[in-house]
């Protein structure tokens, strides 16, 4: 059977979540591996959310925020960029495939971009196979 990865998406309310809705209203089709948590801003994302998601068995984590400069809260995503970049480096040095974690800026008007990113990322994670390193073994 084909491996269908479980991917956790964390999307900011104003841009990426709205963009994801737009993908729906325009009836774009994309893989259903990403399960989205809505937060108000990408800056809400605590790095430990990412670690925890992987521990919970997520094969990949996709974070979506507004384009830099377009943050609903002015500068939230600029902080998020630094904090999440650092998170990514930490995961990488711990030996976790960097391809399992991705941050994308997707605006409210970029429904197609959302679908595209989900498609791409799903394929990428699929190719990496199941994430077993951090996953808590019951």
């Amino acid at each position, binding site marked *: 059977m084909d491996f269908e990865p*479980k991917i*956790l998406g964390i999307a900011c*309310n*104003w*841009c990426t*979540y*709205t963009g*994801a*809705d*737009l*993908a*729906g*209203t325009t*009836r*774009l*089709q*994309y893989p*259903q591996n990403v*399960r*989205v*948590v*809505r*937060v*108000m*801003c990408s*800056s*809400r*994302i*605590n*790095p430990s*959310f990412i670690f*925890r*998601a992987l521990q*919970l*068995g*997520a094969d990949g984590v996709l974070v979506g925020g507004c384009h830099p*400069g*377009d943050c*609903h*809260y*002015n*500068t*939230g995503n600029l*902080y998020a960029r630094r*904090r999440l970049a650092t998170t990514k480096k930490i995961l990488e040095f711990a030996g976790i495939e960097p391809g399992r974690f991705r941050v994308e800026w997707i*605006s*409210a*008007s*970029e429904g197609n971009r959302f*679908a595209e990113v989900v498609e791409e990322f799903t394929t990428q994670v699929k190719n990496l196979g199941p994430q077993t390193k951090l996953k808590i073994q019951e």
Partner: protein
Amino acid sequence: MSRIGVFVCHCGLNIAKTVRVSELAEFAATLPDVVVARDYKFMCSTPGQEMIQRDIKEYKLDRVIVTACSPLMHEKTFRKVIENAGLNQYLLTIVNIREQLSWVTHDIEEGTAKAKALLNGAVYRARLLAPLTSRVIDVNPDVLVVGGGIAGIQAALELANTGTKVYLVEKNSTIGGHMAQFDKTFPTLDCSACILTPKMDAVLQHKNIQMLTYSEVTEVKGYVGNFDITIKQKARYVDHNKCNACLACTEKCPGKGVSEWDEGLVKRKAIYIPFPQAVPQKPVIDRESCTYFIKGKCKLCQKVCEQKAIDFEQQETFSTVKVGAVIVATGYDLMDTKPLVQYGYGQYPGVYHSLEVERLFNSAGPTGGKVTLRDGKEPQSIALLHCIGSRDKNYCEHCSRVCCMYSLKFAHLFKEKTSADVYQFYIDMRAAGKGYEEFYNRLIEEDVKFIRGKGARVTDSEEEPGRLIVEAEDTLTSKFLRVPVDMVVLCPAIVPRADSKDLARLFNLSTDKQGFFMERHPKLAPLATMTEGVFIAGVCQSPKDIPDTVAQAYGAAAEALTIVVKDKMELDATTAMVNPASCCGCQNCVRVCPYSAPSFNVDKRVSEINEALCKGCGLCASVCPTSAIIARHFTNEQVLAEMEGLMEF
């Protein structure tokens, strides 16, 4: 232990087509703490809402999960529903299985499986939700309107007539906007000035409107009900309090600048009013073309001014206004067509863009309303090229919507004012509007040649120097046409104002792919934006004609009124708070907050958050190393629990 009710919506077949809704409800019923789970055709309908309310009472529910469309769609609706049933509105969780699931898959297996995971996440999260109390704030009763075109004017007048104080900011030295440049309006061909100038005058006279021309918004602080807006008054070098509008200065002035108002077709003085009916009727000095500012001497205007109104030392000034709501109506620019070299704009003098032509028709324009070419001759043959940059993936993908109709208007005016042959090169004629198709029919009868084929190239004629050749395929006959003309009119794409990005940033507006301001929802909230209390009207939202613009202006005025008419309003309760017992005093929150909501209490060595300033982004909560900051409704526990639920299945 919670008592959770789960309500799964079919949304007709929208959801039910790709999610087995009854199976989803059955699944929900197996989850711990779920005491009732149902599915229903339209949960947002009255029977659906009543079902939820009935169950809240019957099963003593303390959490409600609605599994339906996006929370951006109906979260507010369902919050009201549960609140009316006596439950705190924040105990609602929406699971989005329409926009982000049923509409984006065809596979019912996949759809049902993912819906279960999403629902499970919601159950995990719902258990940890806490009732929250909305904040009540005072509302400032005044409104700011940005942009003094027809949309801004109409909105300002409507508001002012209700007794609301309005600040109308316009960056040019006169209000009126693009509409004031036109001669006639389609399809009725009534005179643009006859409609507009009385309104402009009404703005000037209205005691409730404070007009701020030659001004720009430079800073926006605060939030709905309480905006603090800084406005820059650019230096006019003319004291408008003293000036009596005799305009003697403009006659004497030796300076020559390019008339922006006439789209660069003619020169104007350095001290000028853009056009005779300008409001206010008072001149400004353009530094760039003023002899005094260029050479250091002249001051002729000062000499002739009896009122001593000329002030070369004038500086730009900044003032702050407090308002409860804002209407943004900043209009549009035309796309620059020079990069489309095949059409020869800027290369051949016979090629015009549509706004230039508007000025040619206008009796107050550079030719006094006569249609003449740049060399003064009357054109014998004219081609109108539609969709220049519009409907074009290489430039603007959108349809600019008004070009078909104004091209018809142009054709009529050309026919009226000249004896020229008129060709329309079009892809599709779009005449959807009241009286528009009739107008199209009228023009066909006026013997305008309609060529179905986009103009491919404009070149100069080798046979008749000075004439132009329009090349295109007439797709109806598959013939390659070479049409010799004297004048080519391009209908360029309508694009957002060059500085619209800056404005979007100031007001926190989202923009669409082209840069037009995004409405919160195209149908449910077409004039509202993602920023509470900021509304949009007119072409800054998307290209539209004058009737639609005016209608939007009325609508935006009504929207703004709904806010400022009350003296108090409720704000979202989803703000952040500090648990002082866990605060380590690192002050990260203080450092990062864009709204200065957190501050450090030096005595207690802990941070505190001013909830009136907090907008609930949650940044402080994520930079707090000790998790002392609780981002209400998005707490760490809630997010972690939701993640756990999402990953279980």
